[in-house]
């Protein structure tokens, strides 16, 4: 069973993850931040080098603080199908899918990945904590739900040479692992569960082990990675990569419904670009279905999420979006100059019909602080396809060696 939480848990409220000793040894500038109660690196050595490791070689990021729930039992499939908006009956054992879950009013509680290990065992990985919601939704299902964040150490290995790293580290057969596959590997660090997933939109893998194997796994990858330019990275680099990949984040690009104090801040999946996940036609009922079906039928979405390509090279962080330069029609939720696609990119939450049927004549107001003076400019923004960056190597199987 679970270890009880220690009484002295508060003495250092940002706990160390199982990989902490290795990251701390590499850390040069002590740029840490708190991720869900864990000490996580913002930047380990050099943000730009870390970003380019993702796009040029291999990057290693500690995702242990990601919240994880184990869902197991005879009704696990039916339960997950009820909980989430996608059709879980189509998710085969050994596969993962990206999904979202809603409250009864069809407002998004969170997005995340659902892992299916066997017909009766799943794992839900996400940003926010949902135990009460998960337990309440389980009423009537023969299923056990446990919060297992602390029980699993996790690493994200991303970048063009990530496949080569795993191959050289002795993950026999890794070349046949397709995107969204999960498989267990016997390695010198013990058994490791690997999924071909990630938050960078690049070729990449996520690796899961019990905490006591964590350092052995790190060392195994680190050693094999030396020839493939492996770099340990912090969140700053990842945040840029995820924007290029067009991924949204709870708390940044949308407010999880249970935390939204203002009712109008809640969003349906359709309003944050996740409409493609919603399987209104799946045979089983699911939380929020009635509301979502009505919303869809009436085309009643009030907002939409768009990808923007903005003139100039000044990132439009926190900017407002205007139609014809006058009417406020949305706001930027994430923005950056993309080193890889060489464009000034952003995600924006828009008030319909702007961003949906009215797509022309959009402007963003950017305040650029230059030597203590703000220079304000109104620049053109064009709606473009998400993701901004989607390389072929991401999905090629077997992956190339770059």
């Amino acid at each position, binding site marked *: 069973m679970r270890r009880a939480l220690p*009484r002295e*848990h*508060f003495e250092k*409220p940002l706990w160390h993850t199982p990989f902490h000793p290795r990251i701390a040894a590499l850390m040069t500038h002590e740029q840490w931040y708190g991720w*869900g109660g864990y000490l996580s690196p913002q930047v380990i050595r050099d943000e730009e080098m870390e970003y380019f490791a993702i796009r040029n070689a291999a990057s290693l990021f500690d995702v242990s603080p990601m919240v994880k729930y184990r869902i197991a039992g005879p009704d696990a499939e039916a339960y997950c199908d009820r909980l989430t908006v996608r059709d879980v009956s189509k998710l085969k054992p050994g596969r993962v899918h990206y999904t979202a879950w809603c409250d009864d009013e069809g407002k998004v509680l969170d997005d995340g990945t659902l892992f299916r290990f066997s017909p009766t065992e799943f794992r839900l990985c996400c940003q926010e904590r949902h*135990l009460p919601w998960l337990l309440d939704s389980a009423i009537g299902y023969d299923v056990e739900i446990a919060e297992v964040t602390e029980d699993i150490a996790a690493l994200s290995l991303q970048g063009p040479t990530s496949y080569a790293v795993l191959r050289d580290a002795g993950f026999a057969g890794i070349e046949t692992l397709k995107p969204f596959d999960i498989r267990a590997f016997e390695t010198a660090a013990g058994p490791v569960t690997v999924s071909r997933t990630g938050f960078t939109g690049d070729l990449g893998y996520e690796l899961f082990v019990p905490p006591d194997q964590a350092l052995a796994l790190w060392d195994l990858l680190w050693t094999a990675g030396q020839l493939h330019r492996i770099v340990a990275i912090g969140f700053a680099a990842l945040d840029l990569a995820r924007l290029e990949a067009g991924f949204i984040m709870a708390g940044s690009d949308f407010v999880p419904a*249970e*935390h939204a*104090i203002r*009712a109008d801040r809640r969003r349906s999946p359709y309003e944050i670009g996740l409409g493609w996940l919603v399987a209104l036609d799946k045979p089983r009922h699911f939380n929020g279905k009635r509301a979502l079906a009505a919303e869809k039928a009436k085309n009643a979405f009030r907002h939409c999420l768009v990808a923007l390509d903005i003139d100039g090279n000044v990132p439009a962080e926190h900017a407002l979006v205007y139609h014809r330069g006058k009417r406020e029609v949305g706001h930027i939720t994430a923005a950056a100059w993309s080193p890889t696609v060489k464009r000034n990119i952003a995600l924006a939450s828009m008030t319909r019909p702007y961003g949906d049927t009215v797509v022309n004549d959009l402007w963003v107001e950017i305040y650029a602080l230059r030597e203590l003076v703000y220079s304000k400019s109104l620049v053109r923004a064009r709606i473009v396809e998400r993701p901004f960056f989607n390389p072929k190597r991401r999905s090629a199987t077997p992956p190339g060696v770059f």
Partner: protein
Amino acid sequence: MTPPPSSAGKTWDAIVVGAGHNGLVNACYLARAGLDVLVVERNDWVGGAATSRSLYPGFLYSNCSYVCSLLRPEIMRDLELPKHGLQVVPYEGGVILKQDGGYLGTFRDHDAHRREIGRHSLRDAEAYDRYSAEVIRQCRFIRPFLLRTPPDPTSLKPRDVQELLYLGRKFYDLTETEMADTVRFWTMSIAEFLDEFFETDVVKAGFCISGIIGTALGPLSPGTAYVLLHHYMGDVDGAIGAWGFARGGMGAISESLASSFRASGGTVRTGASVDKVLVENGRATGVVLDGGEEIRGRLVVSNLDVKRTFLKLLEEPQLPADFVKKVKNFKIRGSSGKVNIALDGLPDFPALPPSAPFLRGDMHFTDSVERMEGAYDDWKAGRWSADPFLDMMIPTTIDPTMAPPGKHFMSCFVQYCPPKVEGHDWTDAERDGFAKTVVDQIAEYSPNFKDLILHMEVRTPREIERETGLTEGNIFQGELTFDQLLFNRPVPGYAQYRAPIGGLYMCGSATHPGGGVMGAPGRNAAAEVLRDLKKPAKDMSDAYPVL
């Protein structure tokens, strides 16, 4: 005692009866608007239930109210209270000690707090954010009403209609689910409300506390969820629901108000107890002090609770019979006591990790809703609780000004203490019996506590009423139940701070939005006075918008 000012025979623009913090807030705004204002206070000091008293050498006691959150920031700023000495410092921790030797602590750090609840229940730990979001939603609904005069629902005056529409619109702005939640929230018990979020007794007991403080209701009584809101709708520098200490004790609030008032030319006269409000031709024209001295004023504002104002300072025939009846029926049941202690050192609590910030916050020993309800059962029977519920603080763990270094002032607020013991007035022996339950409870968890006691002030409702004039010692000048809120506070038809007698106003906690050291009744009443005088309210800034 301040000597009578040499202004015998003069007619003041306004006389404020009572220098409680609301009386002082009211007087400040009136003085700033250019009125010549006199405040008359029965005690030799100002503040009413917001005072710091030196009852043992070297120590200051916040002997009634002891923590600050509700005082509206608009008031602090308008009246320049920081310049006059006010400083509010947030406190840090908090804990409930359990009978089985365990405890549940409070932490300001979000993840530490989650893990602390997680030591008791992982589910409850993850329900915490959900719960806070819901309470803050309810706070957002109520906060805009604090600095507004409630509408009279029977009136067709444009202002009343407008205010009713405002109320209606606020409600209409809610989604269907929010409307249902709001109506439920305003009427349900705190225990039921918590059952919807939490499963663990000690966790629920912790969140219950604000639902019962100062109220003659138990955690299972309907209406207590709203009382929780009343304790949650304040803030410390924008941190909603946070509480802090006024540096120098709660009297620092009243002293800063008095200082601000004097700086605007106002006069405070302490040691002057008002016996009657003078009424001539149906209008208030001044007051008569104990001893017969008459002071004339063009208008009179009473800071006292409604029972004292109308049943003691006025004669029944001067008032509409129906009004008198409603005042008599106004629920103002005393339900709280207080034990203030000077300590020779910081008590040990061996169950608690020494590195925790628990002593720098509110401490409790009631670890279940059931025990809390049990404490209330004793109150209903007219007894003090055998197993009392304490809201205990040691302000000197944060405030260096209230006791000599190394020594501590401890404030124990005791919820449930009856106004009379089994129908008769309190005796001194009974008061000591009440104190014993409190001291014994603390000593159960702190072996060295009793040895550290240097001095103790014990206050049952009898002592509270005697000193502050709060009828039955009711800390809010009247229960905060839904039937006595908004346009029904204190009495339907008289919620706009005007008495049924011309020139007489009410500004105490008995009026909207109610009790606690908030200042809102005092300010709202000043706005009405100035409206009647057709004078602009100078320095009264708009209520801060709720974004």
